[in-house]
């Protein structure tokens, strides 16, 4: 089989096609298109069409005419604060989870105990998909005002709520988000960490690098592309999270998804769907901006992979 050299020296199976050959061959092109067809349909129906509808609606008045009013409203007052809250919460939760998740992935990758490996990855798979009411309840029962952990700490003379902590604050929400973001980071980073070769660290040490320098000059730069990609996934995951925050804060903290939920459900004022779509449009823009920033950083960090 033909092979193509790749990073780390492993060989990837090549397609056996000369570059551009598939594109020039109509039959082959059709087969390739059929292969990705179902995914493209899915993408169109459940991402492109809804997104286009949201963007269109964001610039429409309830009567259907063009207006900037929704956009202006979405960037003022409580909605602007909601953007600030969502960005702050997502950035803090994503960054903290990314760092902690990477450390756990490194620790796990360096362990030679397969049972521990399986247990942790299985646990992470479960935790990364836990959210909404069950997660909120679990945290209320443990570190809520009268949660078990809170009571235990109180019995020891330290009630965190007497020292400024609240589960129902931005910091409390960030902790709850970390519950599913850290395991997600572990799962996403583990393959990248496992691909780090011992020889790189040993070669660096032989050239005079201390352990810290091995990581600083080799481990971290090699992991950077995967870390940035995972960080973006975590950020967007946290930015779009709705159910857990809604259940936990009951709207007491301004977050964009909660504001959109309120507007679409008509809990406060009827006929505000266009404003909700304007907020949704703003969320799309935030994700696009983050995506562009990621692409720029990734282009620099992953220069050696091209």
């Amino acid at each position: 089989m033909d092979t193509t050299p790749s990073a780390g020296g492993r060989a990837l199976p090549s397609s056996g096609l000369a570059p551009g050959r598939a594109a020039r061959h109509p039959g082959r092109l059709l087969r390739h298109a059929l292969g990705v067809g179902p995914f493209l349909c899915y993408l169109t129906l459940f991402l492109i069409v809804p997104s286009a509808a949201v963007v269109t609606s964001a610039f429409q008045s309830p009567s259907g005419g063009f207006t900037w009013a929704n956009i202006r409203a979405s960037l003022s007052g409580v909605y602007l604060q909601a953007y600030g809250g969502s960005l702050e919460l997502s950035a803090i939760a994503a960054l903290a989870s990314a760092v902690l998740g990477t450390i756990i992935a490194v620790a796990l990758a360096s362990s030679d105990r397969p049972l521990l490996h399986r247990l942790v990855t299985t646990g992470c798979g479960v935790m990364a998909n836990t959210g909404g009411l069950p997660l909120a309840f679990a945290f209320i029962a443990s570190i809520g005002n009268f949660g078990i952990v809170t009571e235990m700490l109180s019995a020891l003379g330290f009630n965190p709520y007497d020292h400024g902590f609240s589960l129902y604050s931005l910091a409390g929400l960030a902790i709850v988000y970390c519950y599913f973001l850290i395991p997600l980071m572990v799962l996403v980073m583990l393959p990248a960490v496992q691909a780090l070769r011992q020889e790189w660290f040993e070669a660096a040490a032989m050239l005079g690098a201390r352990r810290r320098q091995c990581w600083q000059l080799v481990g971290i730069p090699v992991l950077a592309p995967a870390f940035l990609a995972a960080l973006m996934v975590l950020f967007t995951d946290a930015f779009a999270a709705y159910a857990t925050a809604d259940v936990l804060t009951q709207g007491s903290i301004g977050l964009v998804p909660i504001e959109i939920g309120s507007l679409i459900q008509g809990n406060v004022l009827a006929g505000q769907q266009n404003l909700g779509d304007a907020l949704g449009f703003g969320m799309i823009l935030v994700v696009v901006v983050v995506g562009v920033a990621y692409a720029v950083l990734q282009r620099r960090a992953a220069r050696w992979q091209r």
Partner: protein
Amino acid sequence: MSDGAAVLPLTLGVAPPRPLPAAPRRGVRVEVVGCHRRFGRVVALDGVSLTIEPGELIALLGPSGCGKTTLLRALAGLEELDQGAVRIGGSDISRQSPHQRNLGMVFQAYSLFPHLTAISNVAFGLRLRRVERTARRRRAAELLELVGLAAQADRFPHQMSGGQQQRVALARALAVEPRVLLLDEPLSALDAKVRSQLRDEIRRIQLELGITTLYVTHDQDEALSIADRVGVMNAGRLQQLDVPMAVYDHPVNAFVAEFVGSVSRLPATVGPAATVEVLGRRIPLPASTPAHPEGTPVDVLVRPEALRARPDPGGLGMVTGRSFRGAVSRIDVVLPGGVRAAATVAGAEAIALGPGVAVAVEVVGAPLFVTDPRRDAG
């Protein structure tokens, strides 16, 4: 620079390779004394001692798991010793970390930092030593030229072939002016032609720099062709350490005889007056043979060039295979009792020795070694 470190001839050009200068022997002496290392119940090193003279290249040869890589890694500081000492230039470095030892190491494969270009890989060690950027890039460029890769300086590892990557790894190891160069099967992942070219290149550079070198390999051709002395290891012990010719012609035991080069193990009987009877012919016993009573069954180990095979319809042997090797051919023969033997014959003679031909086989050279019969040899 450390005392005794090899000084890089930074003005060297490499293409085409120049005649080898006399080895300047600027390297340091390396002493490994009584090294022991166990991994659980496995004994990787069992009291290994050896001395590498300044500027000398020693190749450690042995089967997988014999402890040769463990010894090299212990020298590098990548493996801790249970017991024993490593001295370089007279100083005990057993307690030093790898980054403190100033040794250069080339790994088996894929050890280049994937996120750095060839020139940045080579400059890595100089960067750690805080050499000014312009100076380190100039030095790295000169080293890339030394290994014939000046044109590939800005390529990333994945854009280079395996042979090119190993050349860069060699340049990177040399860039820090190491006291000793350690090579851990550096050619094992390369194809035969590149392996042969790079082997010569490594030897040329090693001689030019006069750097003390330990070269680990499981390839006997590589070891015999590149080394000043060859150390053969088995089961954590250094079996023999000598110049290549001595290891080949005068192995100290049956393991070395069978591991280095090709041998046939032929059943024989000890005869009178220090002789042994093998294939119906009485020949002198090797001088190293321990005394055996007359009539004792033994095995003699014989090199292919010490056996002659000729077509003979009444011969007891039958040719089972013939492989062309340039000026000579190797003829594989099966003898009565299922004993297998290999003989070397000149090219023209091999034409008549195809598979299935009955042959007479006789010992025409001195046997290498006489040993107790192997149980499965009958």
